[in-house]
């Protein structure tokens, strides 16, 4: 079991036991589909805000944001700002009208607003596409964290990564199927506060306890502006994988040597470190076949501004506190748009707005969400920056956790940063708390995604088309079966990520993949929701055109980019259109306006408004129901565990 961390595993087991206990407890209160999918629609603002935050803060936020900052500097910080900013679109344009309309799910809204089964089915496809894109990074996070935490497989699965995927998949399947939305809500509240506590504790550990660098004799304590100045004072370096064949080129090998020399200059004993690292590279070259990959360190290049590298005499230069490591000028805007628009297109988040007791409560919930996640997103980039210096210090001191791989003083996989820095700054106990926090982040988000996917199939397809006369018992059974099916699908996706080599194609893969899910949601749903709510002239055909252009277009862009990164085709010889598509990391800057334009043009040409459009309009924007609820005191939260219990 190597570097097995007993405390960490015990804490994760406690979290899992608590999760299942809450699910079993809440089962007593889940007897109708409204309970199973919407927690009875009476969740208070603070509780709902905690649950939304738990739902929202996924592996991407807990592991991915700090990792992205560690790998990409300022471009990584944008993930945090964009994830937070997304809720503004929800609160300004979506939350209250969606609650007023009073349906169960986004496909219900699509059906209610546009009046056709075809529209509902398009929305179901959109929900499933977005959810599956979002499940992928959660499962990758599960495998990665398990690998760092346990480092070995169990129960007949010999691969540590795959074990993590299976364990998380099975646990989440059980607790969502048993607890439904009430159990999931309660769990998400607990999980949110655990992961927020873990992130704050990590910051406290790196700031006040610090790390004793025995190589230099310094007590390293995180200071934001000083650390940022230190890390930005020299060229930014990053890990890369080159084949043995590539390293056989003397020019490439010489560049690797120069880069390693620069990376070594930041260590306590540069000469010794340089010799040891180059020896490792030479050994790997001598032992490897031509196509085997070797970890090296390289100078990073700014994709936004041309910066001169005085050592190489080229423009391969980048500094930590400047933009441009990941994104060129197009992607700078496109990524921001994908993040701020995508939140409003995430079905598992929108589902949560139906659980509010009133429109006003929906807005209050969103404000609290912004406070909770805002604090979290201010802290995550600090931890990412602290990691740049402290991981290096730990390598210098010879105490860096053996469960992670390093090259040139850097983590090979930045997604392993959170558990690694927790171990460095806070020992086994903090690593345990952080690892449990990582699992909490995955559980809470996966649970929301499973509920959203299950409701798309169980509620929107089975109840409406397959068996409209189904009893409550049958409906809940189908919902639970759908949860089991999608949990297995999530496990399969988790397995496929390293099997296809996607994990080595992108740095900070978790945050990247989540942003893809945001881009799909931003393309598929947000134009339809915005125009459906705010433009009476939107027709069913217009909305479908928007979903095809926005959602379908985004999926095509992402897959072409992914295939290019996996080198499945040669961009240089490909069709210029494919080359152009492949160059875009996030297509939202094109797909979102294109979807809006498609909705506008097709709606104008079509002109077939639903016959009851005035009635629909009154349901979305009218307030008679809310006035009536207020008169009878029904605009107040009733607590999650109220209502009829099972006998």
């Amino acid at each position: 079991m190597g570097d097995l961390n007993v405390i960490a595993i015990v804490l994760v087991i406690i979290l899992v036991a608590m999760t299942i206990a809450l699910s079993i407890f809440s089962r007593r209160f889940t007897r109708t589909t409204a309970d199973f999918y919407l927690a009875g629609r009476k969740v208070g603002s603070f509780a709902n805000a905690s649950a939304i935050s738990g739902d929202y803060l996924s592996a991407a936020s807990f592991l991915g944001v700090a990792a992205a900052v560690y790998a990409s500097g300022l471009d990584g910080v944008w993930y945090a700002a964009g994830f937070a900013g997304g809720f503004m679109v929800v609160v300004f344009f979506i939350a209250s009208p969606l609650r007023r309309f009073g349906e169960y799910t986004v496909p219900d809204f699509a059906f209610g607003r546009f009046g056709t089964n075809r529209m509902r089915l398009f929305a179901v496809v959109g929900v499933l596409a977005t959810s599956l894109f979002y499940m992928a990074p959660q499962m990758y996070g599960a495998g990665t964290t398990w690998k760092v935490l346990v480092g070995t497989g169990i129960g007949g699965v010999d691969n540590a990564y795959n074990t993590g995927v299976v364990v998380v998949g099975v646990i989440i399947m059980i607790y969502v199927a048993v607890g439904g939305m009430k159990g999931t809500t309660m769990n998400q509240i607990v999980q949110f506060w655990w992961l927020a506590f873990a992130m704050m504790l990590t910051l406290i550990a790196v700031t006040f306890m610090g790390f004793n660098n025995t190589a230099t004799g310094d007590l390293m304590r995180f200071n934001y502006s000083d650390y940022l100045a230190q890390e930005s004072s020299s060229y930014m370096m990053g890990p890369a994988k080159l084949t043995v064949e590539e390293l056989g080129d003397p020019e490439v090998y010489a560049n690797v040597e120069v880069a390693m020399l620069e990376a070594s200059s930041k260590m306590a004993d540069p000469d010794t470190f340089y010799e040891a690292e180059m020896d490792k590279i030479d050994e790997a070259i001598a032992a490897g076949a031509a196509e085997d990959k070797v970890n090296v360190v390289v100078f990073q290049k700014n994709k936004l501004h041309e910066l001169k590298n005085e050592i190489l005499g080229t423009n391969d230069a980048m500094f930590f506190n400047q933009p441009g490591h990941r994104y060129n000028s197009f992607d700078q805007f496109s990524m921001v748009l994908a993040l701020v628009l995508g939140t409003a297109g995430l079905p598992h988040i929108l589902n949560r707005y139906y659980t509010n007791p009133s429109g006003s409560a929906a807005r209050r919930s969103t404000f609290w969400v912004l406070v909770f996640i805002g604090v979290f997103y201010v802290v995550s980039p600090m931890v990412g920056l602290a990691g740049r210096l402290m991981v290096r210090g730990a390598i210098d001191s010879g105490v860096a956790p053996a469960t992670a791989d390093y090259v040139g003083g850097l983590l090979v996989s930045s997604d392993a940063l959170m558990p690694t820095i927790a171990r460095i700054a806070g020992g086994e106990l903090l690593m345990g708390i952080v690892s449990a926090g990582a699992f909490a982040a995955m559980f809470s988000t996966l649970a929301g995604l499973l509920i959203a996917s299950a409701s798309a199939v169980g509620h929107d397809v089975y109840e409406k088309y397959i068996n409209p006369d189904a009893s409550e018992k049958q409906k809940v059974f189908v919902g639970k079966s759908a949860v089991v099916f999608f949990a297995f699908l999530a496990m399969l996706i988790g397995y496929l990520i390293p099997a296809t080599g996607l994990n080595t194609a992108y740095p900070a893969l978790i945050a990247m993949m989540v942003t893809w899910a945001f881009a799909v949601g931003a393309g598929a749903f947000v134009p339809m929701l915005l125009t459906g709510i705010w433009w009476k002239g939107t027709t069913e055909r217009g909305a479908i055109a928007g979903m095809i252009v926005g959602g379908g277009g985004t999926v095509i862009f992402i897959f072409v980019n992914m295939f290019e990164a996996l080198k499945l085709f040669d961009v240089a010889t490909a069709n210029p259109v494919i080359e152009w598509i492949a160059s875009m990391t996030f297509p939202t800057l094109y797909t979102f306006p294109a979807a809006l334009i498609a909705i506008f043009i097709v709606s104008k040409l079509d002109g077939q408004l639903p016959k009851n459009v005035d009635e629909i309009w009154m349901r979305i924007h009218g307030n008679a129901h809310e006035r009536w609820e207020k008169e009878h005191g029904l605009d107040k939260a009733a607590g999650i565990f109220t209502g009829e219990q099972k006998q």
Partner: protein
Amino acid sequence: MTTPPSSEATITSTYIKHGDHVDTIESVDMVFKAQRKLSFTYGAIFFAVTLALPLLGVTSEWWWKTEIMGGFTWDYLIVSLLYYIFLWTMAWTYSKRADKLDDTLADLADKVTHDVAATAHDEG
């Protein structure tokens, strides 16, 4: 435990009635226009500020390159810290204004309902 009253809505093509509370297409249009003005004003400010940040990062060297405090550039300082204060302020003020607008519009809608009922009674 008492069972809460259920809203037996009466829905027609010209009005929706919940108990004594009525939405007509005219009253809803009034609510819609007021809400649209508020939402789109806040939305415009939000997007203007949010998209201005990468724009400055692309175009203005003083923004992305000049260090103003330790290692902080304006770009890093705003994106990593101050942007959240902007978000909280926007969300809080919007929430308060939207609540106030809801109350105002609810009173107006009730008044419209009352006036219509009174007129019908007088005519009867």
